[in-house]
């Protein structure tokens, strides 16, 4: 093969190749070129994003481990740590939805238990094109089944997350998986090789030819030739991963383990090089000792395979038998494949012959770093002021909003997930955030995933900041305090200056909001090249926030619980229909300016909400997001077990009725307060400087909404619930 062809096949540029030759002082052989190809891919090296990610706040008094390890770690008190991360599996899920999504879940679970934590919760953020397109129906049902299959088999509850439908994700779905685990805070394990002469073990499933060059694939756009990229799909085995989880945790309880890293993207290559580089050491491995699924695999294939459910670990010399006994007990392969050396090199042998020899640092730390050109996209100048006809029938419009697939109940999806296993779930999917008890303590952990592609498309800075604000608001709505965040940044091709500009602005937005709310980013991932046939997705930063609720019994649910409670809206409402769900669904456009965000207003709202929750003054709290106040009121009427409650609401506005109902003004929460607590609630609101407005009372079996004294909506609640509850199923069964 000519060099140009070889470089193209490896997704390396001529400049990158010259840099490799410079580092080695010679031409790389084919195996070495393969190593550099995956390690210097966008997916592994973050070469386009690194200069921007540096701006994110990553430290805080609770942060035990920030970005750069398998997952972030936050001190949650009681001697415990929460270990969590969100990661994308967009490209594999597009090629093979079931296995792609399943192995995405498997990968993020491994990242968590690699750190010494037992996984206790999963969530995911999913985005698809409209269900009117048959391919999207298959993608949705395939991804959901895959997520359910892996998470349920592992016995880890899936607490929900978010599901959004939008044209731009047609043929480029987003599948972002989140996992959280609990560990003893002084028993965190890192992926840093130490101790020359220590043995290197390969544990878990055998290596096959699956997923070769998956990392390089995730760093390229799709075109019609994607069909040919198909054999790179991996098949997961959750039951084997369950054994791997138990075996690793058992080994971690001994002191025989030095370092451990999971084999994810770029498999054996990435785990070996990264462990070596972090410790400033070399690692020598013999490929013939790697357990293999099929005969005749070449060194190149073994090095780059992305077979699932594998781990690499460094044990203390002399403790080999102990390691082997534990893995044997769990019915798993554990093979000593090499040792830690002092020369800083990754040396790969095949039957005693050196087939690759490269400095670990060259692969991991000395990869290319690009400050790619940036340009404000021209479409932003074309953003027009929104002028809309008012709907003639507000009630019919309201019902249509409830049937929007982005707004409608996601029960068809989350009912496929086991969300009760481990028996700690105290706020189930469908709430503002998932909440689990932490056994042995009075506390609970809240978590949620949020992002808004439309906002980010029309104002990347605001979109990034709003993702953080909304996630923190959801955490506040259940009564918890955010303590850490993780992000998954889904963008188009970074070689396009407009995409890079969107990325940089979104990162700035995330930074400012995280700083204001004191929520450090402890890790995450970047997914670029989300483009199919040159058409990109909306830039979609997804933010996962984890919060602490010191008293689990104080958790707040999102739906009205008692007759005769007073309904208050916290926060002011402006007429902000730009970039809204209403604008898209009813008027078929996505333009205008997304709702403004004032970080101080938001912070005040959140601390007020937390204090109301801790004093037990409210019966429900629900964040206002897609679809605004109208949708938040409706969602508050529907309990998770089919129970419903009506309400009588009166709204005032000097402007349009559709504006007050569907505006997506930020920093608002809808709450129901028992009348006996109303005075205390109002006094607290004043203390916090948060405007609150009494808008109605709960009770009855109808929803009555009057705007400026005129009846706008008068519907039986069960009829409304029917529409909201069944919309996605209807969309799938068309």
């Amino acid at each position, binding site marked *: 093969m000519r060099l140009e062809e070889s470089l193209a096949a490896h997704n390396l540029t001529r400049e990158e190749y010259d840099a490799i030759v410079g580092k080695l002082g010679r031409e790389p052989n084919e195996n070495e070129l393969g190593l550099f190809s995956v390690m210097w891919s966008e997916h592994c090296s973050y070469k386009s994003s690194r200069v921007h990610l540096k701006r994110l706040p990553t430290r805080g008094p609770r942060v035990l481990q920030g970005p750069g390890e398998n997952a972030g770690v936050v001190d949650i008190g009681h001697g415990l740590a929460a270990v969590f991360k969100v990661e994308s599996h967009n490209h594999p899920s597009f090629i*093979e939805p079931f296995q792609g999504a399943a192995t995405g879940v498997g990968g993020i679970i491994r990242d968590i238990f690699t750190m010494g934590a037992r996984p206790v919760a999963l969530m995911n953020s999913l985005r698809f094109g409209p269900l009117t397109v048959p391919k999207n129906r298959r993608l949705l049902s395939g991804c959901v089944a895959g997520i359910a299959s892996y998470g349920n088999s592992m016995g880890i509850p899936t607490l929900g997350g978010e599901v959004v439908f939008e044209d731009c994700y047609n043929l480029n779905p987003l599948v972002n998986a989140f996992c959280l685990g609990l560990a003893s805070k002084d028993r965190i394990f890192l992926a840093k090789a130490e101790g020359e002469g220590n043995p290197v073990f390969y544990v878990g*499933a055998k290596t*096959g030819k699956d997923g070769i060059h998956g990392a390089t694939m995730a760093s390229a756009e799709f075109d019609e030739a994607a069909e040919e990229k198909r054999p790179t799909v991996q098949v*997961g085995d959750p*039951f084997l991963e369950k054994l791997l989880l138990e075996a690793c945790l058992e080994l971690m309880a001994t002191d025989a383990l030095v370092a451990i890293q999971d084999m994810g993207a770029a498999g054996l290559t990435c785990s070996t090089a990264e462990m070596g580089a972090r410790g400033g050491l070399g690692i020598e491995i013999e490929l013939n000792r790697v357990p293999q699924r*099929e005969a005749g695999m070449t060194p190149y294939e073994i090095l780059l395979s992305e*077979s699932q459910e594998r781990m690499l670990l460094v044990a203390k010399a002399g403790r080999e038998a102990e390691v082997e006994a534990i893995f044997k007990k769990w019915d798993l392969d554990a093979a000593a494949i090499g040792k830690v050396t002092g020369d800083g090199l990754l040396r790969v042998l095949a039957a005693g012959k050196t087939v690759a020899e490269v400095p670990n640092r060259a692969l991991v730390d000395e990869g290319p770093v690009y400050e790619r050109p940036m340009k404000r996209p021209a479409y932003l100048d074309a953003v027009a002021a929104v002028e809309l006809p008012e709907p003639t029938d507000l009630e019919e419009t309201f019902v249509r909003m409830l049937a929007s697939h982005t707004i409608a109940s996601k029960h068809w999806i989350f009912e496929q997930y086991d969300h009760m296993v481990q028996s700690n779930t105290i706020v189930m999917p469908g709430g503002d955030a998932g909440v689990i008890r932490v056994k042995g303590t009075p506390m609970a952990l809240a978590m949620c995933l949020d992002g808004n592609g439309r906002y980010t498309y029309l104002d990347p800075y605001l979109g990034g900041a709003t993702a953080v604000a909304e996630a923190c608001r959801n955490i506040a709505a259940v009564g918890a305090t955010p303590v850490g965040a993780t992000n998954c940044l889904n963008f188009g091709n970074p070689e396009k200056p407009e995409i890079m500009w969107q990325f940089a602005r979104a990162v700035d937005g995330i930074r400012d909001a995280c700083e204001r709310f004191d929520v450090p980013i402890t890790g995450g991932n970047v997914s670029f090249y989300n483009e199919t046939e040159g058409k990109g997705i909306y830039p979609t930063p997804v933010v996962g926030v984890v919060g602490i609720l010191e008293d689990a019994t104080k958790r707040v649910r999102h739906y009205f619980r008692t007759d005769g409670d007073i309904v208050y809206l916290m926060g002011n409402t402006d007429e902000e229909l730009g970039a809204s769900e209403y604008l898209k669904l009813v008027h078929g456009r996505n333009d205008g300016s997304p709702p403004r965000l004032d970080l101080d207003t938001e912070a005040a709202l959140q601390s007020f909400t937390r204090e109301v929750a801790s004093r037990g003054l409210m019966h429900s709290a629900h964040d206002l997001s897609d679809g605004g106040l109208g949708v938040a009121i409706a969602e508050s009427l529907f309990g998770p077990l089919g129970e419903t409650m009506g309400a009588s609401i009166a709204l005032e506005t000097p402007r349009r009725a559709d504006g007050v109902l569907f505006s997506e003004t930020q920093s608002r929460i809808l709450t129901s307060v028992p009348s006996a607590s109303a005075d205390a609630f109002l006094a607290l609101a004043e203390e916090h400087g948060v405007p609150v407005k009494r808008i109605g009372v709960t009770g009855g079996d109808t929803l009555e909404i009057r705007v400026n004294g005129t009846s706008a909506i008068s519907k039986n609640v069960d009829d409304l619930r029917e529409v909201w509850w069944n919309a996605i199923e209807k969309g799938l069964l068309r």
Partner: protein
Amino acid sequence: MTLIKANVVVQLKSAVHDPQGETIRHALEQLELGQVESVRQGKFFELTVEASSKEEAEKIVREIALRVLSNPVLEVFQVEIES
């Protein structure tokens, strides 16, 4: 038009991981039922189709196997028309 019987075998592609096959192999080992080096499992379908000729039947069945019975991303299939 006559009724023609067709058999379809669907299997994972050779390079694709087959956890179920592995589990069966492992069980055989534990049951000491001989030295079985490897097991690959798959699915078997019997179809009866109405067609004017064996060639037409095969065409119909291949289409069904490709579009419905198999997942072409991960699997391959074989069609056998019964005489």
